[in-house]
């Protein structure tokens, strides 16, 4: 019997038992629904991570630090030997921890590596305040602008390279600083106030404060005001967490401010991490060579790819959990398919007997039922995935809004993934139909034709 005829006959048989077919298919549909949603959600998460990475990191750069803690790998539960390069940062839980920092000598050393093009110190600095004439003062933090960052711009533009008096202003400061809209902030001057460190105050005044009031007076006098010009207003981008309230300026300007704030302290010209740009860093071999050299010299480094892998790993764990539930649903549905197929075989014993008496081959009889199972699998997959796509597409804007994902969609459906999923479900259903199909193929036509 030709495959086409076999598939036609099995489709016809299914149509005769619509309710039974549909109910069995629905069991598979539940699994298909869960898996389609999971795939879509992890696609969304993956694309979020990718965007996060590509909007914030330059793939030819390495993140370099002295302390493994920076990359979440170190063990800071043990006492470590002191040296002058230790500085204090906040741990993920907010507790202050001490980490070894990258010094100026370190930077110079790295700059001498043959494959290193440039070293950009990463500066994050809390300044005293930001203001402009006639407006209130607001607290602020300063970050060096990485050229790899690709933020959404509401007004103005980011010059390349960014010069040392330019400033990128987050959206939130526009109305706080009295601008009526982002456009009207462009080209305006802001003042950033930064206080010199206590030790440099002592050096400059020649006296140490004898009491707190004294210190306050000297401190106020030693506040330095630095002017900056707004060149662009940035949309606060959830894809760049932590930058919502950061004023971004050039690396050199950020370093200058940092120098003012830390002169005379142990923190002077020390950085928790630096960005090392590798010559022809698109070539992974070059990145690896530099990483090797760095690790020989006692640095820890992480490539963008490694950062991405770290984030992807988290997604994968979550994905595995949901996929496991989807698979359990599908395994449960296998029993449903087996049961339905057995009923179908028993109901059609006489028909099978007749077909075999008329010379239908065993393998064609078996195929007839495997096709039936395949149809059920296909139906279940199509219904489940279809429902997931429809529901997902309808709910996507709402979910995205709730999770504050910005323009990023949480659920991304990919046609090829869904196609593969359905094919797999068809195979699972065929597998479930194997035993009943075998039973049908082995029926003795004489026995079968005797049943009334």
């Amino acid at each position, binding site marked *: *019997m*030709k495959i086409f*005829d076999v598939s036609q*006959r099995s489709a*016809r048989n299914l149509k*005769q038992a619509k309710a039974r077919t549909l109910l069995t298919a629905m069991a598979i549909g539940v699994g298909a629904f869960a898996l389609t949603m999971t795939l879509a959600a992890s696609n969304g998460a993956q694309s979020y991570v990718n965007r996060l990475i590509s909007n914030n990191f330059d793939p030819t750069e390495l993140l370099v630090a002295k302390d493994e803690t920076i990359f979440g790998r170190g063990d800071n539960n043990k006492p470590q030997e002191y040296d002058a390069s230790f500085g204090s940062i906040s741990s993920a839980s907010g507790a202050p921890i001490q980490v070894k920092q990258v010094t100026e000598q370190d930077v110079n050393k790295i700059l001498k590596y043959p494959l290193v093009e440039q070293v950009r110190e990463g500066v994050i600095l809390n300044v005293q305040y930001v203001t402009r004439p006639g407006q209130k003062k607001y607290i602020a933090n300063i970050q060096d602008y990485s050229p790899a960052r690709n933020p959404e711009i509401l007004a103005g533009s980011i010059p390349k390279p960014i010069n040392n008096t330019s400033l990128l202003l987050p959206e939130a400061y526009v109305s706080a600083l009295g601008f009526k809209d982002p456009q009207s902030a462009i080209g305006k001057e802001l003042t950033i106030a930064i206080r010199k460190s206590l030790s440099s105050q002592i050096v400059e005044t020649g006296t140490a404060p004898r009491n707190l009031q004294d210190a306050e007076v000297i401190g106020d006098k030693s506040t330095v005001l630095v002017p900056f010009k707004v060149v662009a207003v940035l949309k606060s981008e959830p894809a760049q967490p932590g930058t919502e309230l950061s004023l971004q300026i050039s690396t050199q300007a950020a370093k200058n401010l940092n120098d003012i704030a830390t002169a005379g302290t142990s923190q002077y010209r020390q950085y928790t991490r630096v960005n090392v740009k590798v010559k022809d860093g698109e070539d992974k071999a070059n990145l690896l060579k530099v990483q090797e050299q760095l690790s020989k010299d006692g640095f820890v480094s992480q490539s963008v790819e490694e950062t991405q892998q770290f984030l992807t790993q988290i997604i994968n764990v979550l994905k595995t959990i949901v996929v496991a539930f989807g698979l359990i649903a599908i395994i449960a549905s296998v029993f449903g398919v087996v049961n339905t197929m057995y009923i179908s075989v028993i109901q059609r014993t*006489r*028909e099978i007997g*007749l*077909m075999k*008496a*008329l*010379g*239908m*081959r065993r393998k*064609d009889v078996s195929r007839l039922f495997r096709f039936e199972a395949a149809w059920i699998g296909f139906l279940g997959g199509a219904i489940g995935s279809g429902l997931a796509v429809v529901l997902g597409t309808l709910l996507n804007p709402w979910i995205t809004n709730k999770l504050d994902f910005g323009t990023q969609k949480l659920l991304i459906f990919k046609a090829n993934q869904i196609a593969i999923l359905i094919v797999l479900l068809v195979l699972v259903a065929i597998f479930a139909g194997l035993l009943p199909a075998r039973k049908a193929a082995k029926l003795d*036509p*004489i026995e079968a*034709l005797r049943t*009334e």
Partner: protein
Amino acid sequence: MISVKNIVKTYGKKDSLFKALSNVSFSIPEGSTVAIVGKSGSGKSTLMHIMSGLDHPDSGAVMIGDQELHKLKGRKMDKFRSTEMSFIFQAFFVEANQTCYQNVSLPLEIAEEGQRKIRIEDALGQVGLKDKIDAKAGNLSGGQKQRLAIARAIVNKPKLIFADEPTGNLDSSTGEMIIKLLFKLNRLNKNTLIVVTHDNELADRCQYRITLKDGKVVHFAENKKVSK
């Protein structure tokens, strides 16, 4: 020639051994009509199953032309059955949920043969069901169902048609019509018709009558009165 030689068929094991057929032998020319008669349990259906290759004899042979039937194995046996034989049953065995067209199409699909539409229309025409081609078989009357089964049996132009009590489920006038149809088609298509029956009237119209009793041929008669 179709020859049945020394067929023995037993059922059961040692203690409860039961001989359903013992040393059954006879020959009939191809294209003839044959009635197998006998009391219930005499072995008529068993003989038919063996002659059609559905069942295997313990010993003996069935020759269809030059072909020893039970020498055919697997694919070849299926092929032989799908092209050379067909069946008509007492209980019709038509698929109620399928149309007449789909019912008659089955043997052609199994034998992987083409030109289906013409052949199906022709077969349905021969049994007078052409206007029911797209009707569901379940909606037909008993006589129409058996005519549909006959159409299914002739669509493949088989050499051999086996009919097991074809009129058993029909009233006498409908049965009479079915009998007439079977003989008419036999003359037209020149196939061999082997009918298992209790019906003496039916048996009388066949060229050969084989009477079984307890698995043995007790009477073999050629009916000279029936014209070819």
